[in-house]
């Protein structure tokens, strides 16, 4: 008979060190990207400084560069995409994990993941050839009272913020819903049974599960948001590529990723290239800030749970 080996401190250190090394590698890669971005945009940073963040001009000939219209376009399109995709993605996750009959689950999972498998260029092409004419029709038929509002004003060209938001949300849905679905699946059955035992309706039990898995759900949403922020190909084909700031959904606008993709390979001139890299840096910094904010959100959501755990309610741990 062999006794189980007593775990030693060395085993623990090996494990921690081993996996930690990979975690460190991840951090190193991200830091290296930030460093490279900073280094290659130093020319532009020296020339424009903070002005870069709030100038509207983008003139490669006069070598005047400002990132504000692109920052606007990226934020606006990504937030719109998030607003549209999150309820749908969560709805899908809830349906598949809680409500669908067993035989339906696998096919539905395949179908949602098929959305993720479609290359972004195909989304772009579908966007230009099918979606944009449809949106153009929609824009042509908008009642004039709606057209007067800042949200729907402008000539009906079809390309613009609305088409972009739609395409982006379709692209983001599979990411958010797949992760949310896996997260919901991992909520212990005992939790649900407890809720039903206490007389909860389907929805109330689902709500409890969503709450239990809330940090994972937020994580799923953030993954989708990150996808939307960085999407290049599909966006540049349906957004109209016009560097203007407008609240109108109909107006053609421009995102940071799109302008880099459009002009990077043809950029002649060191300052021009440096300005484009600086836009990459701005996007990187924005992603950092958004992450920090969502982290704060998760942290604030986790805290009440520790107090609520003592309450005898549906949320009681098994």
């Amino acid at each position, binding site marked *: 008979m062999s006794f*189980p080996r007593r775990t030693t401190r060395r*085993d*623990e250190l090996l*494990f921690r060190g*081993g996996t*930690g090394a*990979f*975690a460190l*590698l*991840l951090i190193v*890669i*991200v830091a290296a*990207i930030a460093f*490279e971005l900073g280094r*290659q945009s130093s020319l532009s940073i020296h020339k424009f400084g903070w002005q870069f963040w709030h100038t509207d001009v983008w003139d490669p000939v006069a070598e005047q560069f400002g990132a504000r219209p692109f920052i606007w376009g990226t934020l606006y399109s990504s937030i719109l995409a998030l607003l549209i995709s999150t309820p*749908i*993605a969560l709805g899908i996750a*809830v*349906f598949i994990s809680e*409500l669908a009959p067993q035989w339906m689950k696998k096919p539905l999972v395949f*179908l949602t*993941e*098929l*959305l993720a*498998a*479609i*290359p*972004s260029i*195909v989304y772009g092409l*579908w966007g230009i050839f099918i979606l944009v004419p449809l949106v153009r029709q929609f824009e042509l038929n908008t009642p004039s009272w709606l057209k007067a509002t800042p949200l729907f004003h402008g000539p009906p060209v079809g390309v613009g913020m609305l088409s972009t938001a739609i395409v982006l949300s*379709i692209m983001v*849905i599979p*990411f958010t*819903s797949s*992760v949310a679905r*896996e997260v919901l699946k*991992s*909520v212990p059955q005992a939790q649900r049974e407890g809720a039903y035992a206490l007389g909860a309706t*389907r929805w*109330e039990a*689902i709500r409890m599960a969503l709450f239990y898995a809330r*940090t*994972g759900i937020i*994580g799923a949403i953030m*993954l989708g948001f*990150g*996808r939307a*922020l*960085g999407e290049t190909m599909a966006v540049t084909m349906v957004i109209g590529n016009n560097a203007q700031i407008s609240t109108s959904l109909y107006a053609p606008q421009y995102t940071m990723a799109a302008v*880099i*993709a459009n002009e*990077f*390979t043809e950029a002649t001139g060191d300052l021009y290239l440096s300005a484009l890299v600086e836009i990459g840096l701005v*996007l*990187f910094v*924005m992603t*950092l800030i958004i*992450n*920090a904010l969502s*982290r704060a959100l998760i942290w604030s959501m986790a805290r009440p749970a520790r107090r609520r755990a003592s309450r005898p309610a549906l949320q009681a741990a098994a």
Partner: protein
Amino acid sequence: MMRDRWRRALSHTVLILSAAAVLLALVPLAFIFFYVVTRGVAALNLDFFRRMPAPVGELGGGMANAIVGSLMVTGLGSMFAIPIGVLSGVYAAEYRGTRFASATRFAADTLNGVPSIVIGMFAFGVAVLPFGHFSALAGGVALGIMMIPLIMRTTEELLLLVPSSLREGALALGATRARAVFTVVLPAALPGIITGILLALARIAGETAPLLFTALNNRFWSTDVRHPIATLTVQVYLYAISAYEDWHRQAWAGALVLVTMVFLCSILARLATARLERLHRGA
């Protein structure tokens, strides 16, 4: 009484809404898939899978080299990303609460938001410039970097959701931390982790921009990792923006092949996981 009726009605409404959400997502999918299939099938023939790209005016070219190239580059990327993603996810889950784990999570989320073209630029500086030439390996590095955050975050989130009783049970039986994680906790979370890997694969399978600066593309047959290599996405992109009808048709065929490949990969992985799950539960 009234309250109960209200609660039940609410529950039913939510059911209907979530079913509606599923339909809403499936409608554009059907649209897009239909679009790709009808356009792609027309140009799909045996030559497509056997021949190299032909120049303009010559019909009957194919994308054989691009199909193999895409498989190679994706494979290289996975080899690079899966260990890093899974193991750093393990660290972040096991040592949750430490500042280092927080930093790792933060780094992964940030990396996820970096546009693919910026990653391409970075990979160019790191994997192409120092060696003086484009290569399939550099393409693998670029794609791998994009895969890491998705794999890491899903691994981490799912490991956290494995009931602590499992972990504690293993440790109580005298297993080392490593053994507990790798033989008990990780397998329990495996299906979810596979989902993460598949999502990451699907994500990068459709990427063009990072490959343009790393693997470049190749008109000729090449399986050498140190040389430029053809990929479906780049080839499809080049053909789609050209002026020629024949190239457009081939672009659609390429897109169809790409989507099918990812889909098949996803099915295979799920079948494998299902078998693993059954074994795991059976034991």
